[in-house]
């Protein structure tokens, strides 16, 4: 246990050494040549006036003449940074930069951290809407719930570029991919499995929605929150109708068996447990896992410590265990989702990212792992299997075209090659900067 703790604290020590050394994780780099100062007359005034005028006539040309189609704004109000809570926009900035790094390295996307000095939902909506002309997409990051649901819903309705909240759609996409393969591996049917979701936060509500879209009957889901298993007649359901209508919807349509009680009652006889609740260990007890159905599947995704240690879940009878950690097998890792999904959405200039597009990405993600051969310890690709990103990009883009939410049409091959190339450039550029010493080696 001590070694695990040491292992977990190691990145924290390095982070405090490296952050002040590099003073940030991203920077702006040029995309066009500067052969001499004469080129400035092309890239800036007077030459630049021509593309300006062309865009004025046809506003969609902005995607042809600028970098807009490759940009994402990472927006936070600092109210729910990691598991640290409301620590303020400045304190959230390192996370936003980290996210921008992942966007670039894994998806070839230029993402800009934008930490706002307001927590007012209406103001956030107004500000983000006003950013629309500059960006190809919006990534809402670490905003507290239920505000995050409301902001996402409003912005998705009112903006003509994709708006994404990774804690909802991103986590849901990757989790559903893991779910698909895990259920397949144990040989159960999607229409039969009972799925207990522990925690009814942003992630699990979105996971429930995506599972239903995938074909799990809503009545087979059981959501457990701090007050116990959710069901239509629970005392507080009336209140949810106006305080958290997303959870209210789930209260009404899930749990057809009317299971009441807490986590143990919710897990009894269930085939799958998806825990996105609070750090363990001990949030889920071994005997509760034992009381699940045979060949049970347990995703214990709280960070930094899962709700139950993977070996405990295994000892208790779980066939497949996944966590949020990279040092255990089957990491449910958001970074497997958003870079590829945004890549695909941006490359066909999608207006939005729908649940269908997320589901397409989840299915493709599952397929990549399946092609490599599923095992108890391999139900999801890892970030090293990086062909996963162009492949996700491709299915997302194709789905966007099919749904009529893409501004431009491309063939499957075109999308794949473009995505592959852009992601490879981002990786190669980083390598080159490191080789040339522009990104110096870290301090000892």
């Amino acid at each position, binding site marked *: 246990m001590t070694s695990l703790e040491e292992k977990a604290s190691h990145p924290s020590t390095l982070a405090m050494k490296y952050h002040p050394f590099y003073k940030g994780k991203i920077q702006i780099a040029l995309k066009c040549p500067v052969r001499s100062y004469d080129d400035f007359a092309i890239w800036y005034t007077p030459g630049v006036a021509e593309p300006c005028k062309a865009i004025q006539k046809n506003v969609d040309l902005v995607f042809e003449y600028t970098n807009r189609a490759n940009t994402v704004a990472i927006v936070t109000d600092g109210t729910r940074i990691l598991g640290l809570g409301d620590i303020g926009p400045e304190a959230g900035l390192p996370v936003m930069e980290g996210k921008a790094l992942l966007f670039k390295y894994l998806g070839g996307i230029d993402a800009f951290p934008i930490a706002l000095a307001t927590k007012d939902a209406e103001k956030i909506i107004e500000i983000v809407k006003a950013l629309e002309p500059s960006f190809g997409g919006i990534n809402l990051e670490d905003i507290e719930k239920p505000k995050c649901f409301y902001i996402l819903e409003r912005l998705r309705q009112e903006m003509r570029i994709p708006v994404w909240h990774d804690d909802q759609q991103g986590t849901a996409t990757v989790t559903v991919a893991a779910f698909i393969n895990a259920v397949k591996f144990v040989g159960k049917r999607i229409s039969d499995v009972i799925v207990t979701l522990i925690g009814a936060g942003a992630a699990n509500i979105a996971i429930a929605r995506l599972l239903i879209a995938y074909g799990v009957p809503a009545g087979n889901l059981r959501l457990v929150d701090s007050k116990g298993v959710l069901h*239509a007649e629970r005392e507080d359901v009336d209140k949810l*109708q106006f305080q958290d209508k997303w959870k209210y919807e789930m209260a*009404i349509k899930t749990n057809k068996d009317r299971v009441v009680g807490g986590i143990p009652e919710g897990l009894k006889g269930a085939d799958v447990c998806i825990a996105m609740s609070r750090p363990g260990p001990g949030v889920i007890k071994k005997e509760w896992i034992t009381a699940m159905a045979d060949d049970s599947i347990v995703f214990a995704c709280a960070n930094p410590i899962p709700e139950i240690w993977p070996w405990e879940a295994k000892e208790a009878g779980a066939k497949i265990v996944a966590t949020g950690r990279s040092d255990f097998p089957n990491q449910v890792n958001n970074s497997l989702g958003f870079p590829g999904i945004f890549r695909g959405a941006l490359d066909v200039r999608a207006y939005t990212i729908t649940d269908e597009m997320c589901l397409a990405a989840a299915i493709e993600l599952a397929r990549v792992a399946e092609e490599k051969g599923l095992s108890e310890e391999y139900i999801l690709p890892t970030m090293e299997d990086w062909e996963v990103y162009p492949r996700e990009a491709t299915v997302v883009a194709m789905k966007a075209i099919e749904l009529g939410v893409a501004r431009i049409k491309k063939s499957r091959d075109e999308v794949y090659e473009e995505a592959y190339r852009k992601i490879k450039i981002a990786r190669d550029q980083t390598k080159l900067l490191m080789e040339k010493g522009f990104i110096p080696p870290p301090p000892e």
Partner: protein
Amino acid sequence: MGGIQEIEIRDAKPEDTNGIVELVIRLKRLNEEFDPLFKTRDDIAIHAKKYVESALVSDESVIVVAERKGKIVGVIKADIVDRIFYEPRIEGRIRELYVLPEFRRNGLGKRLIEVIIEKLKNRVDMITAEFPTLNEIAIRFYNRLGFRGIMSNYTIEVRK
């Protein structure tokens, strides 16, 4: 999800008392969520029961329930009020209306209103509904059905 087609709407009977009491308590607890001046008493169950029992035998009250497979899933209660100063004179005042969450958005609330109007139409000149000013759900519901505000009930606390 509750199937609305299996729901029967009918006059309340004495044996429905407990089911009605349960829904009335849920309604009052919902009111509490909107306004602390509607904080429910610890012994609300006793009073709710007496209230329902006396309404069931009163000529001045009408209670209609929605029943599904032996279970009360919705209730409406209206009282006959004589408006001694005004015309029109006889008012049917809806004081309780509650539908369990899973049976909402099926038009059941509206049907309960229609049924009670039908039952009262020979006895009253107008129908009103009474609910806490801050209960947004009720406000939206009655506005949608074409009701409008007629009487205001203001408060100031004199003792904390």
